[in-house]
Structures are given as structure tokens and as C-alpha cells.
């Protein structure tokens, strides 16, 4: 049966995000005349690392404009947290940046601790540092694996996930869960590590050093990979700052800024480590910074284990911290504290704080406003990848599509982190 072309209707009224008319000013007028092509990349596309949708305006293979569309993983974490107590909201933070959950916990918990002004015991500080750095390595491993896959070095992914699995096993040993551990709590960490934990970490670090060399050789001897990363997606230092880029992406552009050095938290000032700084700000430098960062993380973990202080892993300030189970059996006061803590929750004083930490992907900020009640009045997370995707259209203008894939891979996005 033949179909008359005039009968085919294009429902431009219900374009995928409203009408195309809304985009006037974002995409060029040439698109409306039909001179350039609009191409949807995603939401299910292997190189978008999750459900990211890019609307590309193409002139041949050159990207004229790129319009990212996010929100596919929006779960309203900030809204939900407002209805939970302060402590019960911590598990929600795990689910944001699911490749690096301890950093999310840490940002939120540090904000609470800043409000209530609690002293954290040194052993808990060191354990926090160990897990933040272990997960930084795990997160960078996933990044290098998937980035290699994007760039035509397919075997990387298999090897990197093997080492990542070992880190997740270490986390499981302590937190009882591979990824969403909710291990960091206000006043310290949930529980002390088991005996076999430190030997296991040492063993991992020994193996990991050699594996890193292997990975570097796998990538650097791959001519396709080399060709596609050098000189691609260059961002200058001033541009990177103005675009709100942080973390390895900012340092690749030559800006020496790391929150761990600039505003040390959790006792980072006690550890010796270097901040790898790139020069050109291209895709290769972003890779290089992350790679060197993993070595530095391993260095920090080693120092933390060698100088691990003894003592409690949780503060004993009963106003903010629940009593241990052993006390509840014979102390009426502890029973009351326990009951109050888990039913009503803590009531931090009225005020607002903004805490910055260095997560794996960059500076993560947590804005926490309290009205003196048991629920957080407003929690907002400033996510590094959110800023990186918003910077993407500025970086990729005029590039060809394969380079766009390289840039998108190099800024290391996690869509759970972007959408929250």
C-alpha cells in the first residue's frame, strides 16, 4: 500500500522536550532553515555513560551546537532528604555519585559536623581518609576502563574492573556492602575495621603498583588511543575556572588547586602527597592527572595505615552520637539517648554552612541549612560532574563527533551525580 507523503504528520507540538521553538537562541537559525542537521545522541548511547541525552546540531560531521539534556535519573534526593532526619538521610547521599559513595557521605557528614561542632577521634579521621582514597582509586579505575573502551582500547575495561572489585571487597569487609556502605556517620565512622583489613589493604597496594604500570603500557602503546587524546578538547586555565571545572579537569589545565591542600579536612594536612598538574588542558592531560592521582592516593593510604592511631572510631558526645550497644543493657541514660537518637534524631543549631571536599571527580560542595529542627531544612549538593556537563557545549563547539566522544569521556561523568 502506498502512503501519500502529505498524510505523514510530524508532531512537532510534542517534540521530546517541548517544542523546538524553545531552543531558538540555543541552536542556530540555520537549523530552523534545514541547513544543519539535528541529531539525538542518547539517552541510550554507549558513550554517554548513563542516560544523558545530547542534542547535536551538525554541519557535516562538525558540531555546531551541543545541547545536553539531563534529568533522566532525577530522583529528588534533595527533596527527600528534607523529610528524613539528619542521620537517616545519609544513605540517600550514597546513591548520588554511585562510583564514589564515601565522598558523598563525607561531604554531608562534614556539613553536619560543622553545624554541631563535634570533635572526631583521630582513628576515625584516618579511616575516613583511607576509604575516601580507596574509592578515589576505584572510581578512577572505572573511568580509565570505560574511557579506554570509548577510545578503542577495549581490554582496559576488563583489567580495571578486576582491581576495582578488590577495592569493593575491602569496603564490603568493613561496611557490609560493596558500594552503598553509609560507613561515615556524624562523629566518626560506623564501626572499627576487622583485624584482617589492614593486611588486605597492604596486599592490594603491593599488587596495585605493578598493575598501574601495566595499564599505562596498555594505553600508551595503543596508537589509536594516543592519536585520539593528544591536543583534543583543549581548555585554558581561565576558561576552566570560569566554566566551574574542578578536580582533575581543572588541574589538567594547569591550575594548582586541590581542596585537600587548600582547605584540609579529615587531617589531610598530616599526609605527604603531590598534586599532579597538567599543562595543555587536553584529553590526554586529564587522563595523565587522574593516573598520577591514583599513585598519590596509594601513597596516602600507605601513610594512613602506617600511622594508624588507636582509640575509638566514634565520638562519645551522647548529644550527637548514639551509645554503643554494650552500654544500653546497664545504663538507663544510654537507653534514653539511644531512643531519642533513633526516633527523633539530632537537632543541630539554626544556621547554614557550605562545606567543600575533593571528591574523585572534583570539588564537591554541600550546602546545609538548619532551622533548629530534626530535619535538614535544605540540603544542596554542588556536584563536579554537573558543572562539567554544563561546560561541555563550550568545549565541543566546532569539533567532530569522535572528538566529542573523547571529551565527554575525559570529563568523567556519572549521571546519578548530575541529576541527583
Amino acid at each position, binding site marked *: 500500500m502506498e502512503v501519500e507523503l502529505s498524510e505523514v504528520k510530524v508532531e512537532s507540538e510534542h517534540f521530546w522536550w517541548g517544542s523546538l521553538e524553545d531552543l531558538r537562541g540555543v541552536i542556530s537559525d540555520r537549523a530552523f532553515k534545514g541547513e544543519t542537521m539535528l541529531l539525538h545522541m542518547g539517552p541510550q548511547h554507549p558513550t554517554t555513560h548513563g542516560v544523558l541525552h545530547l542534542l547535536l546540531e551538525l554541519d557535516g560531521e562538525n558540531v555546531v551546537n551541543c545541547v545536553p539534556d539531563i534529568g533522566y535519573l532525577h530522583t529528588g534526593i534533595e527533596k527527600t532528604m528534607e523529610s528524613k532526619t539528619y542521620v537517616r538521610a545519609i544513605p540517600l547521599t550514597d546513591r548520588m555519585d554511585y562510583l564514589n559513595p564515601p565522598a558523598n557521605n563525607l561531604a554531608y557528614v562534614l556539613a553536619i559536623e560543622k553545624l554541631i561542632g563535634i570533635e572526631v577521634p583521630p582513628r576515625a579521621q584516618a579511616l575516613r581518609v583511607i576509604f575516601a582514597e580507596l574509592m578515589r582509586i576505584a572510581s578512577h579505575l572505572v573511568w580509565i576502563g570505560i574511557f579506554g573502551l570509548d577510545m578503542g582500547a577495549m581490554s582496559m575495561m576488563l583489567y580495571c574492573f578486576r582491581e576495582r572489585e578488590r577495592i569493593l571487597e575491602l569496603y564490603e569487609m568493613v561496611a557490609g556492602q560493596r558500594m552503598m556502605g553509609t560507613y561515615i556517620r556524624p562523629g566518626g565512622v560506623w564501626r572499627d575495621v576487622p583485624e584482617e583489613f589492614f593486611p588486605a589493604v597492604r596486599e592490594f597496594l603491593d599488587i596495585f603498583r605493578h598493575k598501574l604500570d601495566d595499564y599505562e603500557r596498555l594505553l600508551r602503546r595503543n596508537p589509536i588511543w594516543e592519536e585520539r587524546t593528544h591536543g583534543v578538547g583543549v581548555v585554558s586555565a581561565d576558561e576552566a575556572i*570560569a566554566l566551574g571545572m574542578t578536580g582533575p579537569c581543572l588541574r589538567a589545565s594547569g591550575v594548582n588547586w586541590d581542596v585537600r591542600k587548600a582547605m584540609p579536612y579529615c587531617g589531610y594536612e598530616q599526609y605527604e602527597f603531590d598534586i599532579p598538574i597538567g599543562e595543555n588542558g587536553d584529553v590526554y592531560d586529564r587522563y595523565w592527572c587522574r593516573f598520577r592521582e591514583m599513585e598519590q592516593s596509594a601513597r596516602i593510604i600507605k601513610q594512613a595505615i602506617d600511622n594508624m592511631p588507636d582509640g575509638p572510631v566514634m565520638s562519645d558526645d551522647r548529644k550527637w552520637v548514639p551509645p554503643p550497644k554494650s552500654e544500653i543493657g546497664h545504663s538507663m541514660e544510654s537507653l534514653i539517648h539511644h531512643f531519642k537518637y533513633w526516633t527523633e534524631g539530632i537537632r543541630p543549631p539554626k544556621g*547554614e554552612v557550605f562545606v567543600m571536599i575533593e571528591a574523585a571527580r572534583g570539588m564537591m*560542595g554541600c550546602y546545609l541549612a538548619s532551622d533548629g529542627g530534626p530535619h535538614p531544612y535544605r540540603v544542596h549538593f554542588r556536584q563536579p560532574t554537573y558543572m562539567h556537563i554544563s561546560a561541555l557545549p563550550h568545549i565541543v563547539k566546532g569539533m567532530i563527533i569522535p572528538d566529542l566522544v573523547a571529551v565527554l569521556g575525559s570529563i568523567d561523568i556519572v549521571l546519578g551525580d548530575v541529576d541527583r
Partner: protein
Amino acid sequence: MAEPVDVVEALKAEFPDAVEDVIEEFGELTLVVKRESVPEICKFLRDADGLRFKMLADITGVDYYPQNPRFAVCYHLYSLDFNRVVRIKTYTDENTPVPTLTDLWPAANWPEREIYDMFGVRFEGHPDLRRLLMPPNWEGHPLRKDYPLGDEPTQFSFNWRRIDAGKPYVVRPPESDSD
């Protein structure tokens, strides 16, 4: 490099009328400023010697319902040279737009869109003020305090049919008049 300058003194000398309140608590400095002077204050903070708040760390909104004006917009600026943070805060209501910062920092684009999406605060001069996280045809602004927290029942095998029958895609056969 110039010596760091006290933020409050510098601002009060430059903009005597714009700074309404100065709050220092939890070791953080908050400056409550007039809505219309936000861009020029931020430009001054970014460019002046001894201040150099070059990085826009974050923009976020807060709903202080039922206070009037109910919304606050908080700008967190960070100075790479002098390693310090300042919070600029301004208040607005549903109808009054806040001037945009996208001319100063391209990084302000998405956070402002998110605040528009979540709170319904409009930004004057923003080049692309569309919803960011919610679908374009969404009604209401979810992070407002008078917006209810909704939920969706989880479908398991035992309650699948009951929940499925209530979904909007279910088409019921038209009821006939004969019986």
C-alpha cells in the same frame, strides 16, 4: 600579588547602600545584599585586587515559606588566590526576577536554570531559562516547601495487577448502553 583585603570593608566602601546585613557564623561569612546589585557586587568581588573571587563555586536556592519574601538565592564565591569563600545571599519572591550572573560566569547557567526549575525563581537576562531536571510540561516547582512529597507504589509480583490497573496507559473498553 596584592595583599588580601577585608571583604566586608571593601564592599561597604564600594557599595554603601547595597549590603543589608553581614552574618558571621560557623566560621563562614554571609553578606545579605540587595537583589538588583548582585551582578555588580559579584563583578567587583571577582575583579578587584585583594579579593579576586574568580570561581563561582555554587548557586543554590532556599525556600523560607511562609516568610516574605520567601526565596533566598545563595551564591558561593571562592578566591583561588587567597583561599577563602564568601556567601552572597539575596531574597526574592515568586514574581520578582533576580538578575542573572551568566554574563560574568558561564558556570552560572545551569544552577540558575535548576533554581528556576525547582523553586520558580526567575532570572532576568538568562539566555536559556528552561526547566533543567524536570520534564518541560511539569506543573509546580518541587523544592518549594508547599509542594507535597509524592510517592509511587512499588510493583511486585503480588500487587502487579492492582497497581497496573491504575496506570494512565490502561485503556478501558467503552461502556455500552445496551446492558
